C-alpha cells in the first residue's frame, strides 16, 4: 500500500462529511444537485484535504494549486470542501442560495472566497483552467490546475477545443478529472447523447490518460501523484463513479441530478452519511 491506512481512512471520512454537508446545504423541499456532487466527493476530498497546496487564510496565495469546477452546478460540493477547509463557516452552507447570500447556485468568483472562476455554462472550465496553467507557466509557478469535468458535459465542443489547445501548449500543469458517473440530466449518457468512448478520444487529443475507480481513495491519490510525474502533456483522470454515491435512494437515479429531498429523504440521507 503506497498510502497509510490512516490517510486513506481520514480522506474517506472527509468525503463522507462532504456528502453530508451537501445534503444539509440542499435541505428539504428545494432542488439541489446531489447526484453529481456526491459522485465527485472522494476526488474533491483527496484534492482539498491532501493533494492541493492552498491556504484558507490566504485564498489568493500566488503559489497555490487551483481547483475549478467545469461542472459548475455542483457548487455545493466545492462550498462544502471550502467550508471544511476553513474558508468560511460550515454553518453557512445551510444558507446556500438564499437571496443576497455569498453562496450562489453556481460558483461566483466575486462573492465566495476560494472560488477561482465563475462557471456553470457547461464546457468552459477546462479552457479557463488552461488559461491559469499558461499564466502560471509564464510566472514560473510550479503548481497544478485541477479541473473537474462531467461526462455529460463532454458533449460541449469547447471541452475538445480546450483538450486540443492544452496538448498543443504542452500544459503538463493541467489535470482534468472526468466524473464518469454515466448519467446526465435527462438520462443515461449512452441513451441520451453518447459522448463515449472517452479514453480513446482523450488519448487521440494528446493527453496522458489514467483510468480509476473514482471512489477508491488509493487509486485517486495514486492518479494525482502519477500526473505529477508526466512531463510535456496534460493528464486526464477518467474516474468511474456512481451518481449520488453514499445516499442509497439517490444512487444512479436520474431524478436526483437536481433533486428535491422530502423530510423523510433528508433524515435517511443524513443517517446513511453519519
Amino acid at each position, binding site marked *: 500500500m503506497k498510502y497509510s491506512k490512516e490517510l486513506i481512512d481520514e480522506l474517506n471520512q472527509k468525503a463522507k462529511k462532504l456528502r453530508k454537508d451537501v445534503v444539509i446545504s440542499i435541505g428539504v423541499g428545494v432542488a439541489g444537485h446531489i447526484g453529481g456532487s456526491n459522485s465527485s466527493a472522494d476526488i474533491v476530498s483527496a484534492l482539498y484535504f491532501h493533494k492541493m497546496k492552498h491556504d484558507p487564510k490566504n485564498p489568493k496565495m500566488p503559489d497555490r494549486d487551483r481547483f475549478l469546477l467545469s461542472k459548475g452546478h455542483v457548487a455545493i460540493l466545492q462550498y462544502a470542501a471550502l467550508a471544511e477547509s476553513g474558508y468560511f463557516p460550515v454553518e453557512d452552507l445551510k444558507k446556500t442560495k438564499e437571496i443576497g447570500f455569498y453562496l450562489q447556485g453556481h460558483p461566483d*468568483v466575486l462573492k465566495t472566497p476560494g472560488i477561482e472562476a*465563475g462557471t456553470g*455554462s457547461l464546457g468552459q472550465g477546462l479552457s479557463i483552467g488552461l*488559461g491559469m496553467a499558461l499564466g502560471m507557466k509564464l510566472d514560473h509557478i510550479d503548481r497544478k490546475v485541477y479541473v473537474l469535468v462531467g461526462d455529460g458535459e463532454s458533449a460541449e465542443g469547447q471541452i475538445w477545443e480546450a483538450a486540443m*489547445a492544452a496538448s498543443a501548449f504542452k500544459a503538463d500543469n493541467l489535470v482534468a478529472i472526468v466524473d464518469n458517473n454515466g448519467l446526465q440530466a435527462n438520462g443515461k449518457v449512452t441513451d441520451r447523447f453518447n459522448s463515449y468512448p472517452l479514453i480513446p478520444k482523450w488519448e487521440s487529443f494528446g493527453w496522458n490518460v489514467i483510468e480509476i475507480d473514482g471512489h477508491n481513495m488509493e487509486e485517486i491519490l495514486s492518479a494525482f501523484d502519477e500526473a505529477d510525474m508526466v512531463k510535456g502533456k496534460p493528464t486526464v483522470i477518467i474516474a468511474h463513479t456512481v451518481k449520488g454515491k453514499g445516499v442509497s435512494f439517490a444512487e444512479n437515479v436520474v431524478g436526483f441530478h437536481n433533486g428535491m429531498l422530502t423530510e423523510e429523504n433528508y433524515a435517511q440521507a443524513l443517517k446513511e452519511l453519519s
Partner: protein
Amino acid sequence: MTYTNQRMAYGNTLVELGKEDKRIVVLDADLGGSTMGKLFEAAYPERHFEMGIAEANMTSVAAGLAQTGKIPFTNSFAVFAGGRAYDQIRQTIAIGKLNVKICGSSSGMSDFGDGATHQAIEDMAIMRAIPNMTVICPADANETVQAVKAMVELDGPCYLRLNRNDYENVTPEDKPFEIGIPSVLKEGSDIVVFATGIMVGKALEAAEELKDKVSVKVVNVSTIKPMNKEAVIKQAKDCKAVVTVEEHSIVGGLGSAVSEVLCKECKPIEFVGVEDTFGGSGHNYNDVLEYYKLTKEHIVESILKMVEPYK
C-alpha cells in the same frame, strides 16, 4: 508615430505598452495578421498565444490568464470576438469582472467584401447589454492609441471596437483618453450630433456643409458604455433636436444609449445607422457605406429634417 488605421494603431500600441508591462498578453484565433496581434507576437512571442480557430476556447483561456494577474487582449473580427464568444464573455469574464480586454476588429461594414457574415452591426448592442462591461468605439487611429492605454489602466472587462480600413484622423494625436468622457469636436446650437467611430468624421463633414444654414454641434462619443448621462444631457440641453450617427444597427447601439438618457428630457432624436438589417458585400468600403446610408449626405438629410420644425 501617427497612424491612419485603427488596427495598426492598436497592434503597435500593444507592443509599446507590452515592453514595460509584462502583464500584457495577447491571444489570436488565426487572424493575427489582420488584427495586428502579429506585431505583439513578433515582439514578445512568449506572451502571444495562437489559439487556433477556436474563439470560445480563446476567450475562456483569457479569463484564466486574467485570474493569474495577466492583462489578456483577445483579438478577432468583431462578429466572432463579441458574437461567437458571447457566452464565454458573459459567464466568466463579465460576471467575475475579470480583467480581460476583447478587441472586435473589422467591425461595422468595414470588412466590406466579406458581406453579412463578417459585418458586425450588433456587437455594441450585445456588449452594452452585459453588466460590468465597458464598451469603447474610438473615432480614429489617434484615439485608438490612447484608448488602448486607458484600457490597460482600467481594471475590468472591456470591449474595443475597431475599423478595418484607413481613414484620416479627426481627433488630435496624444490627447489622453478618458473612459466615459465624450468630447465636443465642434460647437453649435441648433442640432447636436452624437457620433461614434468612423461616423464622427462624416458628422463633422456634414456640419461643415451645413455651416451657413444650421448651427450643428458634433460630439464624439467613444465610450458607449458606461454612457455619460450628465454629459449627454448637458450637450443636448441647449439644442433643439438630436441626431445620433453610428456604423451599427440603430437597434441597441449609440442611438439607443443616447435615447435611454434623453427620452426623459423630451428631446426629439433621429438615428443614422444601419436599419434593422444585415450587411452585404461590396467591392469597396464606400459603396457599402453608401448602400446602407452611412454617409455625410444622410447625416445632412437627418439634420435638416430635425431642424425643420424649428425654422
